Structure formats: C-alpha cells, structure tokens
C-alpha cells in the first residue's frame, strides 16, 4: 500500500522500517506522518495531517518494535521496526470498521458521500465484505435546522475532527463529543441542540473536514457523477490526502 507523493530521502536522515521498507523521518514525526511523507499508506480515520492527532479510532494501529501502538500518536524512533500491512493487524482493523458500521446507520447505497467517504473507502481497502455484527440501528434524527448545512448524526464515527477544527482553527467550539463509552455522541454548542442556533457558518474549517457524511452542504446531493468522486478511480491507499505535502 503506497501513495504517490514521496519526499526525497536524505542519506544522513534517520530511518525506520515499515513493512520491510526503509522510511526516513524527522524528529518529532509520528509513524503515520513519516509514512505519509514517504507515500506509504497506513489506514486511518480520525487522523488528518492538518490537525493534532487524536488517537481514538485505532484504525491506524501498527506494531512498533513488537508492541501495538496508534501510529498517529506514536513518535518514530531510529531503526524502529513497524508492521502495518499484515493479516493480523488488518483483521483487527476490519473488526473495528465493522463495529463502526453497525453502531451507526450507514446506508451507502443512498448516501451522497458514497465514493467520497473515508469510512467506505477504508472498508473497501481492507476488504470488508459484510458488517458481521448485529446492527444497533440507533434512532438519530437529522438536524436540518441550519439554512445551508445539514447534520446527519447517523453517520458519525466520533473522529472528533469537526470538534478539533472548530476549536483549533475556527476558535468557535461548535462541536463536541458528549457522553461516555458506547453512549458517546456528537453534540453542537447550543441550548436547543440545533446547529442553526450556533455560530457555525459554511466558511468554518469544521464544515469541510468530516471524513464521512455527517456535515453535509445542503442541496448539493449527487451533483458529482460516478467516476469523478474521490475514490472512484483509485483506492484510498493510492489517493494522497490533499494536504499530505504540508506534513
């Protein structure tokens, strides 16, 4: 699994081993950051190179010198031996994905993010053929109160990217995760619980970071035809993150 935007390798640079390949890194880089900079794909959902790592989805779990670690939070060390694309690790990632699918209501056939959705693309990448577990089928009404954006909580995977974008970039704190454990859920910062009663706007960074289909710009729907969507031509492992060069 490799991506196409490699950075040049300086011979004096420290390196580590990822799935048998020598990967250069700079001090302070996490495993996934260094891997991305070298065009190597490690499956992930809550990680976005534009934001501080969160380490919550665990999809990016690897073994680093024999111990499991989230590659988005584990800093790279010289000569570290990292395994990512192995059957045992991919089996665990697939189980995590299956749990995400059954905990929410993910109807890919009628979802406008289909083809652009990182959850769906990662599931394809890891050859997830069925949800395996019983569906929770939670009752999660939509929030369509905002004039320009809609929240479909059915698709939330609790990655917190919207919350991080809103607080770290927009300085607004529109989104947050509330509750604990299996009851953790996304909320917006308004007494009514409605997006229309927050200071959210379409210019916010938070409006554009959802890796699934929770934060939806209204009335766009299926304007992009099949064949032109993010993951139509190439799998997610061969589709560089647009901001990866900035890492």
């Amino acid at each position: 699994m490799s991506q196409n935007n490699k950075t040049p390798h300086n011979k004096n640079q420290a390196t580590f081993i990822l799935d048998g390949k020598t990967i250069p890194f700079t001090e302070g880089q996490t495993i996934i950051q260094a891997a991305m900079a070298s065009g190597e794909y490690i499956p992930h959902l809550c990680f976005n190179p534009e934001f501080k790592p969160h380490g919550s989805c665990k999809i990016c779990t690897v073994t680093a010198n024999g111990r499991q670690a989230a590659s988005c939070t584990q800093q790279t060390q010289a000569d570290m031996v990292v395994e990512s694309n192995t059957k045992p690790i991919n089996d665990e990632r697939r189980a995590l994905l299956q749990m995400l699918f059954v905990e929410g209501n993910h109807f890919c056939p009628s979802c406008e993010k289909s083809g652009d959705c990182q959850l769906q693309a990662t599931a394809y990448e890891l050859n997830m053929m069925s949800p395996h577990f019983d569906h929770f089928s939670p009752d999660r009404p939509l929030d369509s109160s905002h004039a320009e954006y809609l929240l479909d909580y059915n698709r939330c995977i609790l990655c917190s990217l919207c919350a991080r974008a809103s607080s770290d970039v927009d300085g607004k704190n529109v989104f947050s995760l509330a509750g604990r454990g299996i009851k953790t859920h996304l909320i917006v910062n308004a007494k009514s619980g409605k997006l229309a009663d927050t200071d959210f706007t379409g210019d916010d960074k938070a409006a554009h970071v959802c890796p699934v289909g929770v934060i939806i710009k209204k009335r766009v729907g299926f304007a992009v035809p099949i064949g032109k969507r993010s993951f139509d031509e190439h799998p997610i492992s061969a589709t560089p993150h647009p901001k990866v060069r900035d890492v």
Partner: protein
Amino acid sequence: MSFALETAANPENLRRVAIDPVSRVEGHGKVTILLDDNNKVHQVRLHIVEFRGFEKFIQGRPYWEVPVMVQRLCGICPVSHHLAASKALDAIIGAKHLTPTAEKMRRLMHYGQILQSHALHFFHLCSPDLLFGFDSDIAKRNIVGVAEKHPEIAKQGILLRKFGQEVIRLTAGKRIHGTGAVPGGVNKSLSIAERDELLKDIYQMVTWARGAVHLVKEMHHQNPELYNSFGAFRANFMSLVGFDGGLDLYHGQLRARDESGNILFEGVDYRNYTQIIEEEVKNWSYMKFPYLKSMGKEKGWYRVGPLSRIQNCDFISTPLAEIERRDFIEYSGVMPMHAPLGYHWARMIEMLHATEMIKDLLHYNDIMGSDLMVTGERGFEGVGVIEAPRGTLIHHYRVDENDLVTMCNLIVSTTHNNQAMNEAVRRVAQQYLHGHEVTEGLLNHIEVAVRAFDPCLSCATHALGKMPLQVEVLDAAGQQLSSLSRSSEGTVSTPLSAP
C-alpha cells in the same frame, strides 16, 4: 367489494393449490386456488407477499437523496423510480424547464431502461413459454433451453439487454442504481467517445428489435385462437401520452379509455392524479387496488403498460415502430386488444421504439452539452409521473422548509395492474383448470398469464402503515396464544388475549 372468484363462499371444505413463488417474474408473489372435490375452481387470488416500507422511511430524509434512495425499490427498472422521483423534485427546486442536455440525457437513460427491461422480460422470462409451449418439458422451459434450441434468438435477447444497460451506465454512471438524474437536471452528459461507443452498435439493435416484433407478431398470426383468447378479459386502460397525443414514455398527460376504446378522459395534468385515482386495500394482499374514482371500485379498475400505451396513443413518432403499431391496431380490429398475450407484441413494439429513440437522441449534440442543471422558485410539493417499462409510475412528495421529506406516495405500475392480473389468472383458471386434475403444465398456464403483465412485485410492495395485518402467536403445539389485527383503516384489535 369482491369480484367473481375472488372469495369462495365456503372455503373451509375446499382444497388449496398454491403456486408459491410465481417464477420468472420480478419479486415474490404467489397464486392460491381453491378447488372442490371435482376440481371446480371457487377462488383464485394473486397474492403479493413481500413487505417493504419505502413510503415511510423516506420521510425525514433530505429531498436530494430521494432519487437515489427510492430506486432501490427495484433492481430491474431502478431508472424509472430514479427519473420519476427526479421529475417530482424538479418542482421542489423550481426547475420548470430542464436544459436541452438534461432533458435528452434523462430520455436517453429512460429509453435505455425500456430497452433492457423489455428485452429481459421477453427473451429471458417469457420466450421459453412462447417458443416451447406452456406445458412443455419444464427442464427445457428456461433461457438455457432457448439458447440450446434457438441460439440466435437467445443471443439477440442477451445483447439487446446488454446494450440497454450500457446506455444506462453511460448516462447514470452504473448499469444498476446510478446517480445520473438530480433534482433540476442531470450530473453528467456524454463524452464524444461515449456517444460513439453507443452509435457503433445502435443500428444493429434497431434491426434486432424489429426482428423481435416480427417474431411475436408471427406467433399471433400462427395461433390466433390461443393468443386472442388466453386469459382474455375486457378492461379500461390508462397511460401517459405526449402533449401531441403520440407515444411518450418520459413525459406527457394522462389519458384513459374504456374497454371499447372510447376516451374516458384525456389531457389530465398528472399532478392532479389524486382527483382521478383512488386505491382500495384488501386484507389478503400487500398490494393495493387502484381504480378510477369516477367509475367506482367495481367498474373503475384499469390496465397499464405496453398493451395500454400502444392502443392509447394516436401515433408513434419513430417510423419503424409506427408501422408496427398500425399493424397491431389493424390486427386487433374494431375493438382494442384485451388478450394478455398481446402484451408481448406491444412490448416489442415499444422496444423497437426505444432503440429508434436512442438512435435519434445520439445524433443530437445536446447530449454532449455542459449546461446540466437549473433551479427556480422553491416549492414544497412535487408529483413526477413516467411510463416505466411496466406502466404508469407515480411519485408524489412533500418537503418542508428545512428540506426534509414529510410525505411520500408511490403508485407503481404493477399496482395499477393488480385487479387486471387477478382477472387474468381467474380467467385462465376457469379456462384450463376448471374440472381438470391439476398438473404442473396447467399451473404454468396461470404463471404465463401473470408473466404477460411483466409484474414487478418488489416495486409494488412499498407501503408501510396502510396494509391490514394479522399477527398470531402459537405455542409449541400450534395452539393460538394471542393475536393482533390491524384493519385497513389502521384500527388495531386483539380478538384473543393470552391466557
């Protein structure tokens, strides 16, 4: 109300024969027949046993999802639902007139759908009955048997369908369940390469489609006794016709004729369909029974689909199909053709028309245009009607100010034909089963009558919350512990409580 042979007076002493499931149709249905000791028929019913719920779970969803979501009603003619919903939602976003590119791309998609669905139905599902005989060897009575005995016919059928699916793929993005139509237009046009890919084969498709019309026409001429009388009954019929009275499967206005061919109404704006159509619910089927309000339940039931459309329009705009339509009308004589097997002939004329329309559309530069969508003044209610392969398809939605669907009503083609299909199977049961020992071959006669309508039973069972239901809880010995009934009016009762 109840029709002849719908409900036996004393069913408790009768023998029950079930065809379950009816084969070589889309979806799941069954026919039950009640016979007495002398094999005399007392009751025949076509039951739809699937239970779905699109009208309910579409509520609360954003309107722009609808054309993609509702097409999951069906895997055979999803394009029809996709387009009917898109037409309805055009009104929600105020798109009164589509761009020439959008209009032609949608039509191209639709005629691709008509072609592939009609080819599938005639060649894959029905030609085994027509080529080998209704009670022929069951082991050979299938598409594999056709491929062995009539390889050229089988090949043409398969390639005609494949071409239709390619038209759908290039207009909607996928052969099944694409996304091409969106409220206000389409999301893509054809590239030059895509246009040329279709142009390369379309002339062959027109030739083969014409051959299919001649094949089924010859069957009628060779065996008029069978083809003119099998399961025949008289009925009103309804369809869209173009604003000029010609055959138009994508857009137009509603016209209905009585059993003699006299016009009952015409020029009806389909947005007013609730003023002319009412639906009756019966407690033995999940499929509703529509009828024309003005004529009442007893006289107002009607037929839709190819047999209605070909006889309802004044002309067909494409020359080869028009020649065949005139032949059909001439063969029928003064009275319209009511025989169910006439559906096959009419269906093939439509398939020929679809290939001619595809050919014509491919010669417009508009299909490669870039002006894809329009919007206008926001609306809150929309009705979209299209002539799907199986007949008139009605989609009706209401949307609130926050863009969420609050109401959805679908009347699909097969539902319109519910009473007509029941009449057909009753006539066939009377003609062929009455007084005879039941055999597989005789039971296939019943299925042949159902198949003639090309019913899509999956599409027809979309409602939730309106159907009468009875739930029974039995103990291990089969004794009823409790039961719960819901009437067609929605009243819930518990006739027997748990001890």
